[in-house]
């Protein structure tokens, strides 16, 4: 995430985008490994394959800009500036996690970087994002809010309710629909009639469709829309065409009944956002293979260290169980 509002047009920005995408992929590979080795409580939803969406968008934002995230939220969290250590601690339910272990993967939040949190209710954060934009407008701040959600979430009525209000009141919010072709085990075309972008347009909202595997295309569009939203020209809607590499969640292993291995292979081999961007960087002479490999290695060892730390970290004390129910009552059950 950049500290200034600008297009990511120089090498430094590009390399940060590359690194952030690799960080997400690396985080997810480690999280998946934790699941497979039965070290992680519960299930989690992998973001791998969609990295260009989170990174392309978050790199267009300031720290004080807000995002709302989803059940598939690790990518947004990393892209908006979170650290591995607190993230892994949260995934393992440890006290040093972003939410002191109380949230877990589906509720990870990082307020210091403007991430208002993942959400386990599909569509559950659409109101929150719109309200965040309302705050910005009411208090005269120039913050923009990006609302991430999946294609499946477009079936939730609340989306239309808040788009209507955002449009009526010109709120600085960008609705970012990550269309990865599936909601759980169902293809998008089976659950979405008509056109997703037309649904936003019907409310008078400018809507765009963009290749979600092309980080620069995403970033260019997001940078432009964020700037326009700051000027009061919002809201906007983006449909980002992307793909998730893993199952719906880490436990969704046998998925041939709903999508073919060939399809997965095609996306991974021919449209991977990291490979594509890496090639671009090398071809354009912005980085060498060696430099990029060095980034990868550094990120891998960062992740390894964070995982090891988190595994060893302590759980919250049981006395925390009734803390934070209310802001002003230390122990709700005392």
């Amino acid at each position, binding site marked *: 995430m950049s500290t200034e509002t600008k297009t990511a047009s120089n090498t430094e920005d590009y390399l940060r985008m590359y690194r952030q995408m690799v960080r997400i992929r690396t985080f997810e590979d480690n999280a998946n490994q934790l699941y497979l080795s039965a070290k992680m409580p519960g299930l989690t939803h992998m973001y791998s394959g969609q990295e260009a969406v989170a990174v392309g968008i978050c790199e267009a934002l300031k720290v004080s800009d*807000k995002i*709302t995230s989803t059940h598939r939220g690790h990518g947004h969290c990393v892209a908006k500036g979170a650290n591995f250590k607190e993230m892994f601690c949260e995934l393992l339910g440890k006290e040093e*996690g*972003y*939410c*002191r*272990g*109380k*949230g877990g993967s589906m*509720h990870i*939040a990082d*307020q210091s970087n403007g991430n*208002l*949190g993942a*959400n386990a*209710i599909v569509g*559950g*954060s*659409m*109101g*929150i*994002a*719109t*309200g*965040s*934009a*309302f*705050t*910005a407008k*009411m*208090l005269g701040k120039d913050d923009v*809010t990006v609302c991430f959600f999946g294609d499946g979430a477009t079936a939730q*009525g*609340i989306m239309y*309710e*808040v788009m*209507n*209000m955002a449009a*009526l009141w010109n709120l600085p919010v960008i609705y970012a629909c990550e269309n990865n072709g599936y909601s759980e085990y169902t293809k998008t075309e089976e659950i979405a009639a008509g056109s997703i972008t037309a649904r936003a347009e019907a409310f008078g909202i400018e809507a765009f469709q963009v290749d979600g595997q092309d980080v620069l295309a995403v970033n260019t569009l997001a940078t432009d829309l964020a700037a326009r939203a700051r000027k009061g020209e919002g809201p906007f809607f983006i449909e980002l065409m992307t793909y998730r590499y893993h199952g719906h969640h880490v436990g969704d292993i046998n998925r041939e009944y709903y999508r073919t291995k060939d399809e997965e292979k095609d996306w991974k081999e021919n449209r991977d956002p990291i490979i594509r961007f890496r090639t671009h960087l090398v071809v354009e002479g912005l980085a060498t293979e060696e430099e990029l490999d060095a980034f990868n290695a550094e990120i891998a060892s960062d992740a390894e260290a964070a995982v090891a730390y988190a595994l060893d970290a302590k759980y919250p004390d049981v006395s925390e169980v009734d*803390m*934070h*129910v*209310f*802001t*002003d*009552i230390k122990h*709700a059950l005392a």
Partner: protein
Amino acid sequence: MREITLSQAVNEALAEEMRRDPTTFIIGEDVAEAGTPFKILSGLVEEFGTKRVVDTPISEPGFVGLAVGAAMTGTRPIVDLMFGDFIFLIMDQLCNQAAKTHYMSGGKMTAPMVLRTNLGATRRSGAQHSQSLHALVAHIPGLKVAMPSSAYEAKGLLKTAIRDNNPVVIFEDKLMYQDKAGVPEKEYLIPFGIANVKRTGSDITLIGTSSMVQVAEAAADILALEGISAEVIDPRTIVPLDEGTLIKSVKKTSRAIIIDEGHQSYGITGEIASRLNEKAFYYLDAPVLRMGAMDVPIPFSPALEDITVPTPERVAANARKLCAGEMIHAT
């Protein structure tokens, strides 16, 4: 002390708090020029403008969700939900989102919002506009729930609610909007979690919520004529609940009736009665009785509607029997 209506009291509380805190705003349907169908908010848009008194489309889940997000990011929304029955529409935003924000974030985020809505039957409004649904939100950890019993409480509790850093739901009795009570001109707040002993007595404790406090008081008047001395208590907030004051009273009187306008079964009377039974067990001379609204959808017909809710006469009748030892086992 001057007397004003509950509706004016709410209006004053809002105006005072909005003057005090520029981050507060009102949001809901027809809250601005119309001042709500109950005309409670008249004049506020003139003072605070449409930026802070915001008319919404008929999108309850949407504008409550918006309020949650606004609250999380530095403003203090005061949501106007036109009828308490619409709470069914916004449970997800209120209970899955607002109520859990602080806890799920390990104390890092807050959602300081107020949801003002109403309850109460006998207005001939039919089954979808007459419900008293406070039990539903009281069951969800993370929400505070206030139930003003007069204009005085309506003002003082609302002001406290607006300053609270937690999501608060406040239920006004829509039958009471025009009822007057003494309300000081000077600013005051009513703290949450402190019950109000409306009248002291020695034979039986009548615990009422919202307008049922008045029913309890009317019942106490009837009983007084018969030489039965009833203590009347208004918990004011059901979350947090001032258990201590209630238990103390029951230990003294040895008998109690809880009176509430929510449906009786699986409602709030069971919770309060259970706590009294658990914590004052050996002091009780009779079972703690509960009087809620009948477990039926509220019927439209006046002939039926009026019998669905507790009345002073029925409360007095039950109290009389309890005191006479005729209800060792309630039926």
